[in-house]
């Protein structure tokens, strides 16, 4: 993990260290098992077509979990994630597998964000962020927001 981030290290506009993700059909199966979301929308072609999305789509909750990963990596062990929200605005389609381990070439997703506000309240050093997942075309399919408390160098 990266070194600890402090409240004094960030300002409005500071970019969150981006995180790359590649959704694959294999990852969706693994996610279904780990999260308990067995909705056939994410693995059955005909069902996905009947639902009007064309083909199996990446779970919204997996994209949400990626955003959680983005934030917990950035704030480090001493930071606290207090709020996380996101909206599933656009469909994302996983890469298919070429071998048991390797996906075909295709899209890479990026989790990104930036600081929108910083303030002290109730003895905490709080930072609000705008966050999102963007697809290979640069569209923000999953916009969201986060609130974190960071340690301060001035206060032990």
């Amino acid at each position, binding site marked *: 993990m990266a070194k600890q981030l402090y409240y004094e290290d960030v300002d409005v506009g500071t970019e969150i260290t981006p995180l790359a993700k590649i959704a694959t059909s294999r990852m969706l199966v693994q996610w279904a098992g780990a*999260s*308990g979301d*067995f909705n056939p929308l994410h693995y059955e072609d005909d069902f996905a077509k009947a*639902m009007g999305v064309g083909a199996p789509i990446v779970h919204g909750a997996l994209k*949400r*979990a990626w955003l959680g990963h983005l934030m917990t990596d950035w704030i480090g062990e001493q930071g606290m994630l207090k*709020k*996380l929200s*996101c909206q*599933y605005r656009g469909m994302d389609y996983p890469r298919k597998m070429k071998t048991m381990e390797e996906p075909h070439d295709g899209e890479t997703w990026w989790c990104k964000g930036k600081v929108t506000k910083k303030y002290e309240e109730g003895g905490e050093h709080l930072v609000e962020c705008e966050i999102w997942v963007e697809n290979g075309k640069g569209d923000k399919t999953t916009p969201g927001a986060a609130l974190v408390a960071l340690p301060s160098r001035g206060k032990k």
Partner: protein
Amino acid sequence: MAEGSIITDELKKLIGVSGEPITFKVEEGAIQRYAQAIGDPNPLFNDIENASKNKYGRLICPPGFTGWPIKGGISVFKLVDSLIKAGAPTRLLDGGVEFEFVEPIGAGDVLTTTTKIASITERETRMGKTMFTTVETTFVNQKGKVALNGRATFIQF
């Protein structure tokens, strides 16, 4: 809206209704498998062997571990089923979620969750007449403290 509402009287009756509380224990292996599925190698979520030495003294759940919005999803599907039986459109998508993390959640915790249908609204979208259901879930830990509040919206059309 030009035509009648898609929110039937049966659906209106479901607003404010809570599901049965569900209690579950947070297991180390489940946390680890969840972190692996995200592709998150953070030792806080993965390192069982050294978990007692971290800030929390135990393996911690990645944010969102507790589910969408209920662990296991089964209860969500039951809820959706009850909406569909009450006349809601059958095509369903996850609209989004908001989490407020109050207390750390980690291995060994026993959480009791209750979910309530907070609101049902409708509007015209590019999918046609679309219904938005917001559910609120609270997770209380074994100490009786609220650990997490969640709000999720699902979209039916």
